[in-house]
């Protein structure tokens, strides 16, 4: 029962944080010029946006009249109200996932021409982000798996074999993880993979597009069929599993791998999974670099404690002492540090998804801030920031609960 009390107490602590984050974003949004705010947060009838306060008069086109749609947007967003009221309206919208609409003139709204992304203008931001979120979650989960299965054993080993070659290797790995830009590591990994796995089959085209060795290095896998995404536009040559978005098979969960497996399309599931192995490793690398140091140091401290000496004195084999007695502690350290670095971890997604041509929310975010100010999409920018923040907050709750589960002193103390 104490566990449930702890969970509830932890969940209540989230409330001020979420209110604070929204307030920070509100301060930023309300510092935007008023046109940008009305433009991207309000959708009147149809898909047009109320970008200009004035429009040309129907009776005399040389004159300008007040734009009724714009006035409507100002009223609806409360822009003519006092600041506290605006704040309350924003909080309500943010909490009810009413995050605005993709605006008409932005890069996302106009569809980025050559890249084949359809024009998304007028789509609710939540819908757009929700469509691309499952793919990012798959990537994140795989990446977390790599973090756990690499950093804990390697950190333990480098503590046990202190100052031996494996310790030096892990130290080099750790330092280089701090110093190599993620985009560069990603590009290098991609290039190596392309030459290693590419082969002649890899040069085959996806969907008649101009795919290359680089974009499609798993060329030996059967290609998914081509079909348009969102009606008319085609998402090729990008790497998003467009067989899913195109309705080639229905997607009950939205997670590409799971959906393919549900339908018995195991080669599709394997293909989708294999494509995110390398990006997940690259994302994991930065966090592993941090974790290796912490796991090693905590292991070194634990190895000198009395209970380890006791375990050895009573004749336990060394492997058991390390695995059962000392090693148990490194999981706690890993979980704690993961919670602290999760915000940094998920900011790697826009970069890595751009390198590997994956279409998750990070990529959508990258296209919301691309180019000149006229190409920016404010609703998507602030919506993504809110989404990423929710992910961090949720991850922190999960981490704290896991930590309390692993360490009874936390929940009982």
């Amino acid at each position, binding site marked *: 029962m104490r566990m449930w009390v702890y969970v509830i107490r932890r969940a209540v602590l989230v409330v*001020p*944080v979420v209110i*604070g*984050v929204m*307030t*920070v*974003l509100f301060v*930023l*949004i309300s*510092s*935007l*010029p008023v046109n*940008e705010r009305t433009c991207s947060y309000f959708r009147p009838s149809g898909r047009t946006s109320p970008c200009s306060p004035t429009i040309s008069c129907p009776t005399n086109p040389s004159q300008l009249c007040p734009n009724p749609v714009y006035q409507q947007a100002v009223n609806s967003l409360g822009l003519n109200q006092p600041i506290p009221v605006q704040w309350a309206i924003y909080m309500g919208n943010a909490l009810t996932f009413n995050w605005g609409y993709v605006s008409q003139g932005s890069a996302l709204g106009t569809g*980025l*021409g*050559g890249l084949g992304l359809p024009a998304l203008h007028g789509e609710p931001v939540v819908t757009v982000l929700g469509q691309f979120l499952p793919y990012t979650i798959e990537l994140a989960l795989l990446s977390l798996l790599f973090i756990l299965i690499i950093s804990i054993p390697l950190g333990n080993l480098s503590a046990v074999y202190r100052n031996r070659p494996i310790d030096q290797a892990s130290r080099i790995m750790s*330092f*280089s993880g*701090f*110093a*190599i*830009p*993620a*985009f*560069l590591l990603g*590009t290098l990994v991609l290039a190596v993979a392309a030459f290693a796995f590419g082969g002649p089959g890899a*040069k085959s085209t996806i969907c008649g597009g*101009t795919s*290359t*060795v*680089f*974009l499609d290095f798993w060329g030996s896998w059967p290609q998914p069929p081509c079909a348009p995404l969102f009606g008319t536009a085609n998402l090729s*040559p990008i790497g998003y599993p467009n067989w899913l978005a195109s309705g080639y098979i229905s997607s009950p969960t939205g997670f590409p791998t799971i959906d393919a497996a549900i339908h018995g399309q195991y080669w599709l599931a394997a293909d989708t999974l294999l494509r995110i192995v390398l990006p997940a490793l690259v994302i994991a690398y930065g966090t592993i670099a941090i974790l290796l140091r912490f796991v090693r140091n905590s292991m070194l401290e634990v190895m000198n404690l009395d209970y380890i000496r006791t375990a050895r004195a009573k004749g336990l084999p060394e492997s058991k002492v390390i695995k059962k007695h000392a090693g148990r502690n490194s999981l706690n350290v890993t979980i704690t540090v993961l919670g602290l670095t999760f*915000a*940094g971890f*998920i*900011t*790697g997604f*826009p*970069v890595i998804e*751009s390198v590997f*041509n994956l279409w998750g929310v990070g990529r959508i*975010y*990258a*296209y919301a*801030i*691309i*180019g*000149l*100010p006229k190409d*920016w999409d404010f609703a998507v*920018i*602030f919506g*993504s*920031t809110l989404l*990423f*923040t929710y992910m*961090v*907050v949720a991850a*922190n709750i999960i981490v704290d609960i896991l930590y309390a589960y692993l360490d009874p002193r936390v929940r009982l103390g």
Partner: protein
Amino acid sequence: MTGGMEGADTVAAQTEAPPTSEFRRSLRARWAQYQRTWYFLRRNTLAMVGLIVLLLFAAAFVYGVTYPASTSDPVQYCASNGPEPVGPGNPCYLNPNTVCTYPQGTVSPSPGCYQTPSQYPNFIAPTYTLTATGAFPMGSLVYPASDLNPNAPFFYNTYTMLVKGTVNSVGISVIIVASGAILGLILGALSGYFGGWIDEIVMRVTDVFLSVPGILLVIAVIIVGKSAGFVDFNTTLALIAIAFIIVWWPFYARIVRSQALVVREQRYVEAARASGASHGRILRKHIIPNSVYPVFVQMSLDVGSIPLLLAAIVFIGFVLFPFPLIPEWGSVAAAGASLLTSIFLNCSAGAACVIPWWQILFPALAIFFFAISVNFFADGLRDALDPRLRR
């Protein structure tokens, strides 16, 4: 370990010397502490390597500041109506007026031709030339015309970029980290020392900032600033600094607070309070000086990470600086790397593969060596400051 004992003896000798003034006495004690830290730091080979590389970077910084203005202009504009360039020695030797249309994906019929931009952000393969400018022969990258670059084509010389990039990258990192640390130090010390509602407010605010992914908040602040009309080069630099400081101080505040919580319970703080010292004096003389060491470690780690973050921001397509690029390591390398996919697309379609490797490699190496030497140094500093790790 004999050296350690000697160090301790020196400290004892210095503290026993007759005090001349309170200020000098405290200075002497502190100096002895620095000497002790330096003693342990000196024995750490990696930290010393890091320090030497950092000193080289400091020298490069000075060199970059004094680099002659006439040749240091990193961006060589080749105005479309400018004088006719003369040859490979001249960075503008490609005739910018030569706009030749040829089927996309085919090899340029003659040097100096670039494809007309048909579709934003359609990529046009860069042409390049290797020029011997400065100490090393390095390439320049020609940026073709686009919405972002109306002054096309312009040349980027890698050597001048590296030299000037040291000034900008190191300078902005140090400014950001120092300001963030000072802000965090003050707020963290207040919060840890006084506790109560000040602590509550500061900690809730840091909670909020630690929950928002840092880069996204930085980008949001920069975007709002640029929308509000701060667009030119110097204001952009200021904007970046402000955005990072807003995001960075909570980390320092947390560190300092946790230290201050320990320090305020110490006997010497109690003694100071008993002898009538004011809060301000205790904060200045006891709390802050005794909480500052972990901040140094965190600062040295963070200085190395800021060029990496700037690179990440530029790589995902955010135009951090008003185009053309300004010489900042991260943004230059990222701009080069972000061209790669398009280059491979083009050259697999039959065009010549021109990979601007120098634009990616050299700034990335600079970032790598800067970050890794900073990390070596910070790691050694932490070991030197933490008695438990001196085994």
